[in-house]
């Protein structure tokens, strides 16, 4: 964990420095002494301080040592599917996009194909019904409009 602490601490310190620098360049507001710069700068300096302390390993004694699972490419599936939803929902419509999402996520989680397919067929119409009909959220119709829309 020590190496990653050094990395995360440095990243935070760099982010803090960038925030403070970016904040300091914000234009002052006419007629006000305290402008938009003050708060980001305070936070930025705070982050730099925390980042340095973390990188130096201070406060490590409080942590419970845990060994995280090894990374696989599959962890990127959920955020990837959310991006897919944003890009595809308007064209494909909610039902098709949602079905694709549920199917892909189910398979990536190791579901048997039959279960994943069943979920992909059942879940999207139910969610659509609840959100579109009950909560009046304007979900896009796209290629396959729901029969109740």
């Amino acid at each position: 964990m020590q190496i990653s602490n050094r990395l995360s601490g440095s990243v935070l310190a760099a982010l803090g420095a960038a925030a403070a620098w970016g904040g300091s360049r914000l234009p002052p507001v006419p007629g006000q002494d305290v402008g938009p710069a003050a708060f980001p700068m305070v936070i930025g300096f705070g982050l730099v301080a925390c980042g340095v302390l973390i990188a130096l390993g201070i406060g490590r004694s409080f942590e419970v040592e845990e060994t995280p699972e090894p990374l696989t490419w599959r962890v990127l599936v959920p955020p990837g599917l959310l991006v897919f939803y944003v890009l595809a929902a308007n064209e494909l419509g909610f039902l098709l996009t949602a079905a694709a999402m549920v199917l892909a996520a189910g398979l990536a989680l190791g579901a048997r194909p039959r279960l994943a397919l069943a979920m992909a067929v059942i879940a999207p119409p139910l969610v659509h019904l609840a959100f579109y009909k009950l909560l009046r959220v304007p979900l896009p119709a796209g290629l396959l409009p729901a029969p109740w829309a």
Partner: protein
Amino acid sequence: MNDLAEAVRIVLATDVLIAILASAVYGLVVGSLPGLSATMATALLVPVTFWLSPIAAIATIITASAMAIFSGDIPGALLRIPGTPASAAYTDEAYAMTRKGQAELALGAGLWFSAIGGIVGTLSLMLMAPLLAEMALSFSSYEYFWLALLGLMCATLVARSSPIKAIASMLLGLLIACIGMENPAGTPRFTFGVTDLLGGIEPIPALVGVFAVSEVMRAMASAEPPKLPPRRFGSILANQWLLTKRYQWQMWRGNIVGIIIGVLPGAGADMAAWVSYAMSKKFSRTPELFGTGHPEGLVEAGASNNASLASGWVPSLLFGIPGDTITAIAIGVLYMKGLNPGPTLFTERASSMYALYIIFILANIIMIPLGIVMIRLASVVLRAPRSAVMPVILLLCAVGAFAIGNNPFSVLMVGVFGVLGFVMERQGFPVAALVLGIVMGNMVEQNFVTSLIKSDGDVWPFFERPVSSVLAAFTIGALLWPLGVWIWNRLKSTTGEIVR
């Protein structure tokens, strides 16, 4: 007394009773869905209230919000995915209890103490509204600044990881809250020319991302955890009486803190839960048990957030100033229905007021049976295969985020925060502190900057007003306390070494 009889008659009208029952079910379901908060549940009700009679309309909001705040605990306890920001404070605790096989105790505590908190909060609204309102109006930006700082410090008290990482997470949250132009200067900050960032980052997509999406991401990397021992869910209320007796003092403290924080406009149930959970840990005889599946903090925080929900109506009803985001929406509905907030609501329309009180009490009572049914239904997900549950949660995250402003950008944000939450957890940074930072960021900056503007840059007024001086003493004391303890221990150990 005539007013009271009239109020009972109003509440017992068929349309009002149906509205209460329907919105109770609605609130329970919506609050339990990851991605839909109690505020969202209320906002999505507005179009419906348009068609209802005034009392029925308000009844739906009162009932649905109380139910949603409670049922936000359900996905938190079962899946480690808090349904509302108010649950984020103690999600890890409740989930730890579930892993110990005590899901029914954790959820039962949430239900039981939420209902008690709601009823005590309502009593405070009925008996002390003018007094509480007086207190709310004595808070100026100076007092709010100290209050917000105190709230932020809870992040470090609650965290089980290193306090420095907790502070770093909180600061990151505050930095994220800087994004957009909803700052005192009205200047776009860190928007990088993206229009959707002008309005800033909403807390809900962030909450959903760092908890729900990152949980789905973790599921991708890990093998399916061993199934919990296949035993029947025990009686949900059986042990609550025991907890009530054992943690009576904590319950009352939670109720009182909740009422006070709820009355202060702008703070609300989220902050009440955090402060109460942190207080519970601070004053506990066994603080080391917190986070390992210990019900003490759940009792206090559960009692607190529903109490704050009820007392948040005090400034809303008396002055039209919302106590939190839920009452902000409710005020709009009150006006729309001709029940204009103001002192006249209490005097000239006393029967309507009594009706609202009765609805509050009624909602918190029916919460118990309906909540039990909901818990039993929801606990099915503990038995369902993970590969069937997680994809649906991901879908709900997307739709829930979209529903906030019918804006696909929020869905993108959920994904971004999912990655952020995943990385942070792996590095040992508590994500709950990040959420607290995002929720509180605007309040901290707003009150800091406006106070400085009002005082022409002078720091003295921060300590000058009576209430603010007390709050300042609290904050600075809490800030210096750990440092003092640390120095004391250091001195003791060094002198000890010399002697040895």
